[in-house]
């Protein structure tokens, strides 16, 4: 039995497929690819798939993660090849790693997500990057976040690990907190940015592209975060300095 973590991209019209349907899509693709996947026990056995984090409808991504268990396999390369040969063009498996015994699920490990964010033409807000850069300079970025039990006040600044504006292309690259403890959705940040300008925000304005999802780890230099699947130690980002 092997536990695997798959990295995949989701681009093109498939971005309108919701999270549960992406799950159903994968279950069918795994059957088409004839992968010896492990099924749950019981009268109606099903494939056990576990996604790192759902992606909102309309968003594209180059870094989604999915954990699955197979009874047997030739190699991770073989699985990648089989899956990609039955995939729709919009979804592509980019990498597969085998997990160590007892390693936590991607969902539990995820710590942050990197996005490339843009405003669609319908927002009609050409110089927004300059304005937002100003807004983000505040020491605190308070917001009310809806929770299961109501609303609570959060400081978005604490959840914003890193950002770089590209004024020329009117986009921003942002690394935002995304863990089981706290998640900052790009839309919430934009909503409060708009509020700071006394403008009405519509989630349809925001064009979201997820670049990757990060897990956290520790080494002699301190606590770092890095993409789930990476060979490049230089991609580690150290928190708190």
């Amino acid at each position, binding site marked *: 039995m092997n536990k695997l973590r798959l990295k995949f991209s989701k681009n*093109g*019209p*498939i971005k*309108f*497929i*919701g999270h549960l*349907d992406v799950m*159903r*899509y994968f*279950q*069918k*693709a*795994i*059957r*088409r690819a*004839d992968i010896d996947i492990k*099924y749950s026990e019981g*009268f*109606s*056995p*099903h494939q056990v798939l576990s996604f790192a984090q759902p992606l909102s*409808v*309309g968003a594209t991504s180059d870094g989604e993660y999915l954990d699955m268990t197979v009874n047997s396999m030739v190699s991770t390369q073989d699985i990648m090849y089989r899956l990609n040969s*039955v995939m*729709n*063009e*919009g979804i592509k498996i980019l990498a597969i790693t085998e997990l160590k015994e007892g390693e936590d699920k991607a969902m539990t490990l995820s710590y942050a997500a990197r996005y490339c964010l843009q405003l*669609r033409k*319908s927002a009609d807000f050409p110089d927004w990057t300059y304005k937002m850069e100003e807004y983000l300079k505040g020491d605190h970025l308070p917001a009310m976040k809806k929770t299961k039990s109501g609303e609570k006040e959060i400081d978005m600044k604490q959840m914003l690990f890193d950002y770089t504006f590209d004024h020329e292309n009117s986009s921003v690259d942002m690394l935002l907190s995304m863990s089981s403890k706290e998640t900052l959705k790009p839309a919430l940040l934009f909503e409060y940015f708009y509020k700071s300008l006394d403008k009405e925000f519509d*989630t*349809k304005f925001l*064009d979201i592209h997820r670049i990757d999802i990060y897990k956290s780890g520790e080494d002699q230099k301190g606590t770092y975060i890095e993409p789930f699947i990476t060979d490049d130690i230089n991609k580690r980002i150290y928190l708190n300095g």
Partner: protein
Amino acid sequence: MNENLALSDETLLSIEKPERYIGNEVNCVMKDKEKVDIRFAFCFPDVYEIGMSHLGIQILYGMFNSYEDVWCERVYSPWMDMDAVMRSQNIPLFALESQDKVKDFDFLGFTLQYEMCYTNILQILDLSGIPFKTADRTWEDPIVIGGGPCTYNPEPIADFFDIFYIGEGETRYRELFDLYKKAKNDGISRQDFLHMVAKIPGMYVPSLYDVKYKEDGTILSMDPVYPDVPRTVYKEMCLDLSKEFYPTKPVVPYIKVTQDRVVLEIMRGCIRGCRFCQAGQLYKPLREKDVDYLKKISLESLKNTGYEEISLSSLSSSDYSKLPELLDFLIESCNEKKINISLPSLRIDAFSLDVMSKVQDVKKSSLTFAPEAGTQRMRDVINKGLTEEDILRGSEQAFLGGWNKVKLYFMLGLPGETDDDILGIGDIANKIAVRYFETVPKEKRNGRTIDIVASTSFFVPKPFTPFQWARMNTKEEFLDKANKTRKGIMAQLNQKHIKYNWHEADASMMEGIFARGDRKLNDVILKAYQKGCIFDAWSEYFDFGKWMETFEECGIDPFFYTTRERADDEIFPWDILNCGVTKEFLLREWKNSIKGTPSTNCRKGCLGCGAASYGVGVCKEGKINE
């Protein structure tokens, strides 16, 4: 991947289920439009989830796309939220694959599966910018063609179609496409093209027939306007289904649809001859598919789609002669791949119970019986060869096997129905409950008990059935009968274990009007659509009041089509078509039904319905002596 969607991201994010409009599903077919001669937009005029569940489109979609010169794409009815956006922003209706305008296609095909979709046809034409009526169309518009069961009386929608294809689609489309290419090449007029089409077998071009009426509103005559146009259009039929195209790479939707599984059609036609059933007559004679062919098809389809379920499809699967062999094969090959098998329309007997216990969770699944009527007398009238003893014996075996849920289906408003027949519904439900308590002793019930659901629908007489002469009940009669059924059930000893459901009567009345309607209804349907009637098959949108208002404005009495008694020799609007069974046979069966005489089934004896002229299927088999 087609990245150029017809709708903007903002639009798609502002409507329900954007997946309905983006195409790009697994197995959908993309072609280079510059390299094909014919572009065919195939429409199921209802919402995506319903339309994507239909086998017929998948068959023809696959077949058309197997032709190098044809690109077939799909179109479904935009849901009400999308409809509003398209109208307000002037977005023309598009096909899913190319996302190109439907108006620019060569053909727009509709599959007509139920009468209540008629206003949705007009929605599709309207949003596409195609004139409603065939008379107003030019070569700038696609050829509008209809197929499916409703084309066996297409008269209420005859004005909206250029062609109706009568019968099974596999046989004549190639000929039609070739004629179309030639006509375009030769630069002949659209009218002349349709005239030529009318000479292809199975093609009914309604504009080439002149209908005259008597003073009482019934039909006097229906004559072709040209001498070389056939007086009668005969249905098209596949002679050997194992040699026809079958889609083993059906399009797999992203979102959950009604029929979300591999559909394996095992045969066409039915030997049973229930007198209310239209499908039973239309698809005669019964033709089975070769079992080895089905095994191969099922494995290929599962492999190509990745579906986790396969369903056998036919009008009465128990009548498939190689059913045990097929099921053994499926159970074995599906088990290792954890694939579920669903078995609708099985007769409940020892064999089917054994199979069901292998493929279903007995505790969760329920047994389904369709006695259709409450007394043996009435079951003889409708020729439903299912006796009370069959039902009770089947139930008993099932109870012993661990089942305890039973579903029963009945019809109200059948010809010659009496109070006894209606009260018989409660009676039979009660007897099943009694049989449960007798069969399963208290200590073996494990806290469970019998759970019966009885449902009734209102009977709608259909063309090409022995009941095409029958009077349909009024809404008041229907509701009175539903009430009597309910009281009859409440009076039973075991009424606590019986739940009763019944259908809306208004929708049944509309279905009855359209089912046996004539050309005078075209104006009513158009006017009702213009007044806002749409998605009539959906109770949340169906507006009966608006329909009745429209009938009044058009000066048409809706009861002419429903409650009127029809004379034996009345010319029906659908008499222009021939579905393989003769009117004499249907009339004979109608008379037998009035006498309460049942008829045999096609395996036991030939009733001389006329379908033997095809010389295939059950008509060629030897008969089993009773």
